[in-house]
């Protein structure tokens, strides 16, 4: 695949680096955080649709009693893959898309700390995602639930290769998450523009920092759990073999020590997004910035002390139940602080209900409903009644869909012009929101009732006469309304792109926004900033546009065009593209398939991985022909005024 021109000046003994030749080659070798962000977003949206189709299958099966659309076995595979896909292949990578694209821009950096590792994270994630979905055609998808409880996930109760794909596939996507988390952590801690202390960072970047640290510490725990599962299934280890005295609760503990921080890994990016959207469209600074940041940090810490509330019904003993019940109620406090702060930000503001703002307000209201039903789970006596019923399904869809998906859509509408240089249609966006809100509440609202009536989760069908018919039908209709809303979004994307073709790009500041990323033109030029800005305050971009007159009133002092950079810098030194992240990532699923089917396959996979690692190390850091000039006037200030944390 290398057809780059041989350089006469290149150093001896190293490989050349690819050059952007335009087209697809640009994308597969890119190390640009913006392109990688777009790749993450596009891939995750595809898997969001895949997971959505799985959800529709579930709802079709459950629409009427004695459903026959899916058999019991297929049903198990579909609901397992729905959960796995939505969490690991849609929600997490969508957050990674926003993080990759926005974090360097929000902190005033040219790229992430390790551009090639960033590309590696994406390709490894894609490899893991494809690997997981290969299971559909290679012997059956995972069928033990996304939580994979032992011993149900063992070879005896789940004899197909599905759970092997689950264990190895999640291990692969886990590598991607860990690498990306280390990369973004270092980026945020090390690469802020001069003057940008930690407490001048936008809330989104702060929340992403908390998320990355949660990933750093949570991923190894699920890694160990998955290793134990792989060893048990593949090599006959006895970690979950109760006949020999093993304790299957070990899996539940390991899984939820990862799994509960994972809940915050999922929700905090969305909290970050709406913390940017709400101040912008309320025309006020965020209320209680420090409280916002510290409550995010508090959630990050307390998220480690609540895992056993997923296990109240598993017999962990009254003392544990009481302790985890209390800690779970406590974690509602920082979350409540956040909700109050968003409301206080809107209070007295000149609110503009754009599509992005509607979705953000959707998060506040829908997440609050999910949060309140969450507190009912914290009361362990009530939870014993609710465990494994549709009440739980209702709860976590209100937080995951209502809290996360609404937040991500808010982010799409807000940052679309930043990424693509044109706006999404506001009109279609508002229709998108209202249809989604109605569909969402119709689907998941009735599940509270179904759960309290006693309908259990994960059953593939139910008999008539229990009073489940009406609400299941309503939920199924609602699910298709959600699908319609997603379709409206896709239409919006296409229509807006077609309309924008041949038109000049939208201005640099369509929303009168507040943070640094809007100081670059739309779409962002490859080098991000012409000059790295020197930061003096929180909401730096806004403060450059507005000042106060002698009577203390806020007045506009500069237009966006005056403040924004024009993106005309040339010769900016940028990291060169590389093939090796892609080659390495292609080797991983081969090793995974080898573990399941034939160890011979691990040989080419292993060679690809080891070979590309060595090629990676020996590849020159930069293309010798690439630009080396720093068109960066602020560089001297950068050396002198780098903030010390």
């Amino acid at each position, binding site marked *: 695949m290398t057809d780059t021109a041989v350089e006469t000046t290149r150093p001896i003994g190293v490989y050349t680096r690819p050059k952007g030749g335009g087209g697809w080659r640009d994308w597969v070798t890119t190390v640009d955080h913006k392109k990688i962000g777009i790749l993450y977003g596009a891939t995750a949206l595809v898997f969001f649709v895949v997971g959505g189709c799985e959800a529709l299958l579930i709802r079709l099966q459950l629409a009427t009693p004695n459903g026959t659309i899916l058999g019991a076995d297929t049903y198990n595979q579909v609901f397992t893959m729905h959960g796995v896909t939505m969490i690991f292949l849609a929600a997490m990578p969508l957050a990674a898309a926003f993080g990759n694209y926005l974090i360097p821009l929000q902190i005033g950096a040219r*790229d992430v*700390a*390790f*551009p*090639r*590792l960033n590309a590696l994270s994406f390709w490894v994630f894609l490899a893991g995602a494809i690997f997981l979905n290969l299971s559909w055609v290679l012997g059956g998808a995972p069928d033990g639930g996304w939580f994979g409880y032992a011993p149900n996930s063992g070879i005896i109760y789940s004899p197909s290769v599905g759970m092997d794909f689950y264990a190895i596939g999640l291990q692969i996507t886990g590598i991607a998450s*860990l690498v990306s*988390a*280390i*990369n973004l*952590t*270092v980026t945020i*801690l*090390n*690469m*802020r523009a001069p003057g940008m202390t930690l407490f001048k960072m936008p809330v989104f970047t702060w929340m992403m920092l908390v998320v990355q640290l949660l990933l*750093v*510490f*949570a*991923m*190894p*725990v699920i*890694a*160990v*759990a998955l*290793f*134990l599962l792989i*060893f*048990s299934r593949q*090599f*006959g*280890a*006895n*970690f979950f*073999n109760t006949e*020999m*005295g*093993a*304790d299957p609760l*070990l899996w539940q503990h*390991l899984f939820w*020590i990862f799994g509960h921080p994972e809940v915050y890994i999922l929700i905090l990016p969305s909290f970050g997004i709406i913390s940017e959207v709400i101040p912008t469209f309320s025309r006020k600074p965020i209320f209680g910035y420090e409280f916002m940041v510290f409550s995010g940090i508090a959630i990050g810490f307390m998220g480690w002390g609540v895992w056993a509330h997923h296990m109240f019904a598993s017999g962990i003993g009254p003392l544990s139940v009481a302790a985890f019940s209390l800690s779970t109620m406590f974690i509602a406090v920082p979350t409540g602080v956040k909700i109050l702060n968003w409301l206080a930000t809107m209070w007295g503001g000149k609110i503009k209900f754009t599509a992005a703002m509607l979705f953000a307000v959707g998060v506040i209201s829908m997440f609050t409903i999910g949060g309140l039903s969450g507190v009912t789970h914290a009361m362990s006596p009530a939870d014993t009644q609710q465990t494994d019923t549709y009440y739980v399904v209702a709860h976590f869809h209100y937080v995951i869909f209502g809290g996360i998906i609404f937040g991500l859509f808010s982010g799409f509408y807000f940052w679309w012009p930043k990424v693509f240089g044109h706006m999404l249609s506001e009109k279609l966006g508002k229709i998108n929101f209202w249809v989604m809100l109605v569909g969402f509440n119709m689907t998941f609202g009735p599940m509270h009732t179904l759960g309290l009536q006693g309908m259990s989760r994960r059953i593939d069908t139910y008999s008539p006469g229990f009073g489940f018919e009406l609400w299941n039908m309503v939920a199924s209709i609602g699910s298709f309304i959600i699908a319609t809303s997603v379709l409206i979004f896709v239409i919006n994307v296409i229509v807006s792109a077609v309309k924008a073709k041949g038109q000049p790009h939208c201005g640099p500041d369509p929303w009168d926004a507040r943070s640094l990323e809007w100081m670059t033109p739309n779409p962002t030029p490859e080098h991000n900033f012409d000059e790295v800005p020197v930061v003096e305050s929180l909401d730096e971009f806004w403060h450059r546009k507005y000042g106060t007159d002698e009577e203390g009133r806020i007045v506009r002092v500069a237009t966006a065009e005056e403040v924004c950079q024009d993106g005309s810098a040339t010769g900016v*030194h940028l*990291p060169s593209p590389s093939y090796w992240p892609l080659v390495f990532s292609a080797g991983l699923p081969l090793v995974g398939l080898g573990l399941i089917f034939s160890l011979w396959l691990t040989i080419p996979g292993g060679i690809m991985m080891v070979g590309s690692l060595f090629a990676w*190390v020996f590849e020159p*850091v*930069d293309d010798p022909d690439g630009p080396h000039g720093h068109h960066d006037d602020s560089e001297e200030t*950068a*050396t002198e005024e*780098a*903030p*010390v*944390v």
Partner: protein
Amino acid sequence: MSEAATTEHPTNTGISHNKLAMWVFLGSECLLFGALISTYLLYRNEFHTGPAPGDIFDIPFTSVSSFVLLMSSLTMVLALSALKRGDIRNNRLWLLTTALLGALFIGGQVYEFTSFVREGLGFTTSPFSSAFFTLTGFHGIHVSLGIVMLMSLLISSLRGNLKEKNSETVEIVGLYWHFVDVVWIFIFTVIYLVPNPTS
């Protein structure tokens, strides 16, 4: 391994990207070994009908190999200090010694594993045996990867690419190596030194 394009700029924390990344990674590794050690602690009494920990461990032997591993941390420090002084010859010597001490430890582990298997403690014998081999095996893989890193440094030095100005690379490999040694202190205590049940 290094992405030097960006490290030439001063960083906010004053710590280079590479070193900070290694520290964050080691933080992650703490949880990996934490979960493995917890699994072992849960199963140390579950030896079913197989050999019990107290029957099978050879504490004097493992103490010696532990001593070997801990001494390799000392030689790692000497390697770094030599390079910082610009003493390439001693740097190579101590890098090689560190790798050899690590290899000696791995040799000891291979010997220990084979003799356990001969005495009837296989990977699938009991929850205890699975947990034991998994925990010590993961540690052994970490030591082996460390040896690969040390040998890469040595080869790079022999080709004339490891100079005083690269001493941070050695320091970062050293961070990893010391971490793996420190983890072994915990593992050695938890597995061997805590009084073990006999069958």
